[in-house]
């Protein structure tokens, strides 16, 4: 470990500097574009405020131009404008794209500087970027556009994040802790709202604060806005600290479910702050309203979820649009819920959670991957945009700073959160089997971050009804900044300091799956014997009902009969098969591997032993092309194999498993491969040589800069050189790699690799581990993991080409996947 660090540091510091410079240049460039954009756009924004006028003006303009042309036409023929500028034509989409581009580039940039993002959470950095952008726009003397508009936020930015959360919600821990989560979400939020609102009102009544005009109801309204924990902020911070599953689900679940409370309180107080009188009747109505809002939201979500599942039953002939159904139905659920002022967040969560198991059984593997990618991409971009916009809005907004109000708000929020959590835990712990320790309570209390939802709700307030709106907004922004910056930045060191249990690597083994099911059955049995209708009893009933009726309706074909265990097993084997094929081993000599054989029992189609025979025939030119294509796509695939979960990257599978015995097998394979390459060169296809995934990625990411940098930093032969695949022996149908031929750089490379393997192993490994660490930022990873992977790649890639060509490791092994992805 220490050796690795020592070797890594000289190149590391250098690349760090260069990356910093690169980022700076990028930033300046971006600021420049945004600046000019701001300058160009601002008149139009003012024009858009009275849209009618804007339209008229444009029409006038066209009319004038037309008449002008006509009049000109008679006299002299004006030259046809070869190039003309019409910025207004594209302004809106162009600006949207620019913002998205800015967000994505910022995200990219932060991941290039691992040290910075190691200390400061991404959310903070993004807010700072937003502040900078806003500041620059302001410096240019322009009006800052109202980017964080409530409509935009609630209708466009928020849904992807929530859907992502709902679709990938870990159901089991969520349901196991549902009582605690609900307690925190409902009672906790109520308590926070009334405690903060009430005390704030009391403070405002003190002489000398100049706040005596603030009434009770606006204060309570403010309290209800400020007291809700924000899912976006929580996700952003908790993803980075890798806290254990229980705490994560507690805080995150609370942030999701408190939406209903917030919605009801918000509408109640908004309604009555005009009327002034609150009767007991209103309280009762409020409670009923809460039930309707939350349960209604869930019902709407569930209905759409079931519809989505049902639709996906029939998509087997039009695979391309499958992912779309997932998104559209969820969005419809959200909109429908919002239409009735039900809790849209709960609807989305319910929709995602309900549809997922059925949709996953129905849609193809590729569609599933697409769904995953799109969800991750959208949610990640939205989140980035939200934080940037938060920064911009801070610069933009009119502020009314009142020291008393702001500081009291911040303090009260902290105090009420702590009291609420401690008090509620005291009650909850009486019912919990696993008690929440003091540490847990601390993290739950400290993790209560506020975010953009509060801001947007505050932004929605009507200025006429609430003269204090500006002050409220300022206080809300301050509270958000306080929680995101102070709490968000300190929570990670605190988690380390308190030695709170971290998340374990979530690899599920088939043993776990079997034994968990077994234990479930066992406990259900015992509950039945005791005559106790508890948790397990109802779960079992639901499972049976699900199996008997729902699955039959919602899952196409025979798959509904497939027990969960089998599905799990297939998934796992499938995964492993991909890995085996990717690494080039395994297929050739199935007899060497027992599990390979067993796998073929289940899906004989999967990796036919016939591959070995097929390896020999001759290739035509067209085939070669194809091979190259497949190779390229496979290289990408290798790159995407990630080892730990991160919301912003695709999930490495939780099912990725069997790593160790896999490695053992690999070892065997390597030995065999060696022998084979030695005795039979005809098997070797001139392939894009093994190349560490990170290098490919780096190259793709930032072209020449990186190449230069790497070449400079490198001791070993530059692997970039072999990236360009050339047809080695043209016109010859058989691919025979002449090891002595100088024309074939690839084969030379093969030799190189054999001879220099010892030396290269180290260097490459070092680099790879290092770069990987940098790329993935905060991911926890044992150093050995990288090495293992390296070893495997090195070994497996000895003769990767052929196997990759011949057996597309894509999901085509599944039955329904036989048709092409694009019809």
């Amino acid at each position, binding site marked *: 470990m220490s050796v690795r660090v020592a070797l890594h540091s000289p190149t590391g510091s250098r690349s760090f500097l260069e990356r910093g410079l690169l980022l700076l240049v990028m930033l300046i460039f971006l600021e420049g574009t945004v600046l000019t954009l701001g300058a160009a756009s601002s008149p139009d924004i003012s024009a858009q405020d009275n849209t009618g006028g804007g339209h008229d003006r444009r029409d006038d303009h066209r009319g004038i131009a037309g008449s002008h042309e006509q009049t000109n036409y008679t006299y002299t023929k004006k030259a046809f404008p070869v190039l003309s500028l019409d910025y207004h034509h594209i302004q809106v989409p162009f600006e949207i794209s620019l913002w998205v581009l800015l967000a994505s580039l910022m995200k990219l940039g932060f991941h290039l500087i691992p040290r910075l993002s190691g200390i400061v959470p991404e959310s903070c950095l993004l807010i700072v970027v937003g502040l900078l952008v806003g500041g620059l726009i302001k410096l240019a003397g322009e009006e800052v556009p109202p980017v964080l508009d409530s409509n935009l936020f609630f209708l466009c930015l928020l849904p992807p994040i929530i859907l992502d959360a709902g679709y990938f919600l870990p159901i089991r821990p969520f349901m*196991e802790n549902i009582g605690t989560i609900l307690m925190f979400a409902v009672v906790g939020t109520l308590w926070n709202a009334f405690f903060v609102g009430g005390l704030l009102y009391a403070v405002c009544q003190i002489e000398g604060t100049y706040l005596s005009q603030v009434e009770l109801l606006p204060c309570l309204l403010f309290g209800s806005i400020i007291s809700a924990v924000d899912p976006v902020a929580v996700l952003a911070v908790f993803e980075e600290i890798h806290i254990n599953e229980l705490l994560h689900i507690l805080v995150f679940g609370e942030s999701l479910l408190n939406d209903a409370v917030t919605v009801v309180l918000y509408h109640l107080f908004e309604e009555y702050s005009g009327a002034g009188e609150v009767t007991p009747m209103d309280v009762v109505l409020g409670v009923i309203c809460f039930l309707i809002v939350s349960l209604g939201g869930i019902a709407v979500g569930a209905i759409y979820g079931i519809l989505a599942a049902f639709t996906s039953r029939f998509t087997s002939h039009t695979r391309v649009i499958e992912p779309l159904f997932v998104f559209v139905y969820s969005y419809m659920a959200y909109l429908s819920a919002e239409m009735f002022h039900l809790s849209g967040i709960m609807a989305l969560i319910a929709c995602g959670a309900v549809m997922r198991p059925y949709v996953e059984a129905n849609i193809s593997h590729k569609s599933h991957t697409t769904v995953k990618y799109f969800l991750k991409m959208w949610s990640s971009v939205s989140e980035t945009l939200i934080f940037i916009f938060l920064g911009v809005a801070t610069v933009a907004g009119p502020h009314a700073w009142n020291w008393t109000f702001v500081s009291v708000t911040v303090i009260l929020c902290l105090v009420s959160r702590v009291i609420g959590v401690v008090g509620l835990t005291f009650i909850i712990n009486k019912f919990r*089997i*696993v008690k929440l320790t003091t540490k847990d309570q601390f993290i739950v209390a400290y993790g209560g971050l506020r975010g953009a939802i509060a801001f947007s709700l505050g932004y929605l307030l009507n200025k006429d009804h609430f003269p204090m709106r500006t002050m409220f907004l300022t206080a809300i922004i301050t509270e958000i900044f306080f929680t995101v910056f102070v709490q968000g930045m300190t929570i990670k060191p605190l988690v380390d300091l308190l030695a709170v249990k971290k998340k*374990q690597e979530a690899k599920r*083994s*088939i*043993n*776990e799956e*079997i*034994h*968990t*099911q*077994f*234990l*479930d*059955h*066992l*406990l*259900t*049995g*015992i*509950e*039945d*014997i*005791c*005559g*106790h209708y*508890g*948790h*397990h*009893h109802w779960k*079992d009933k639901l499972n*049976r009902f699900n199996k008997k009726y729902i699955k039959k309706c919602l899952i196409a074909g025979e798959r509904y*009969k*497939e*027990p969960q*265990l*089998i599905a799990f*097993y297939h998934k796992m*084997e499938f995964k492993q098969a991909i890995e085996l094929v990717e690494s080039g081993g395994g297929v050739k000599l199935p007899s060497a591997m*027992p*599990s390979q054989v*067993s*796998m073929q*029992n*289940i899906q004989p189609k999967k990796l036919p032993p016939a591959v070995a025979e097929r390896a020999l025939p001759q290739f035509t030119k067209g085939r070669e092309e194809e091979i190259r294509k497949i190779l390229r796509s496979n290289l990408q695939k290798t790159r995407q194999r990630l080892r730990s979960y991160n919301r912003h990257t695709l999930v490495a599978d939780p099912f990725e*498993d*069997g790593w160790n*015995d896999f490695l053992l097998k690999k070892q065997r394979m390597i030995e065999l491969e060696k022998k084979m390459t030695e005795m039979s060169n005809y098997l070797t296809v001139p392939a894009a040589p093994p190349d560490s995934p990170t290098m490919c990625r780096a190259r793709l990411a930032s072209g020449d800069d990186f190449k230069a940098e790497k070449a400079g930093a490198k001791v070993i032969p530059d692997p970039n050189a072999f990236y360009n695949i050339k047809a080695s022996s043209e016109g010859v149908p058989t691919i025979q790699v002449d090891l002595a031929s100088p024309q074939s750089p690839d084969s030379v490379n093969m030799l190189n690799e054999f001879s220099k393997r010892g030396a290269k192993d180290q260097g490459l490994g070092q680099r790879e581990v290092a770069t990987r660490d940098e790329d993935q930022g905060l991911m926890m990873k044992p150093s050995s993991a990288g090495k293992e992977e390296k070893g495997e790649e090195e070994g497996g890639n000895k003769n990767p080409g052929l196997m990759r060509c011949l057996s597309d490791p894509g999901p085509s092994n599944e039955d329904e996947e036989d048709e092409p992805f694009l019809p």
Partner: protein
Amino acid sequence: MGSTNSTLSKIPNVEELMQETGFTPAHIVRLYDRFEALDKEKTGHLRPQDFGAINRLAMNPIGDRIIGAFFSPGQETVDFHSFVRILAHFRPADKKRPKDPSMPEPVNSRTSKLKYPPLVFSLISVAFQLYDQDKDGKISRAELLQVLRSMLEMQVTEEQLESIADRTIQEADLDKDDAISFEEFRKSLEKVNIDHKMSIRFLR
């Protein structure tokens, strides 16, 4: 409370039983009521048929095994004390309950009479015993296959079952003896945190 006391007084050695199992009087009464309800012929003993009469248990894929766990080898009936003792395994791990160090003697001496001699009050060991029907301390391939077969309810081919069983053993088997020992079993379940997650609420 009156009814509780009267029920308790019907049970012999109730104090001892409570101390040993850590159940509260309310638990004992509740279990006793259940016991009597199951014991249709009022013999004071339960026979396998009595358990079999529980409808939902008959639907349980591993119901037979669960019933079997209540009967020591060669014994046809189970009395209330054994019944309670066995159910005590499914209590959640409880810090307040005196652990073995504080009262090692009574627990050990009595539990030694139970079916599982080196008894730790843990669900894992119970589950393992349920797998390990021939009590050789290992889950063999055949035993695993049996469990899989009953859990998957005949919806899969024998071939698939076998490959799953192979895979499972291969994965968990650390010492390469083609069987899963208790230690290996425990290891493969390490991450599930069974003792916390899986216990029956009302038995706390």
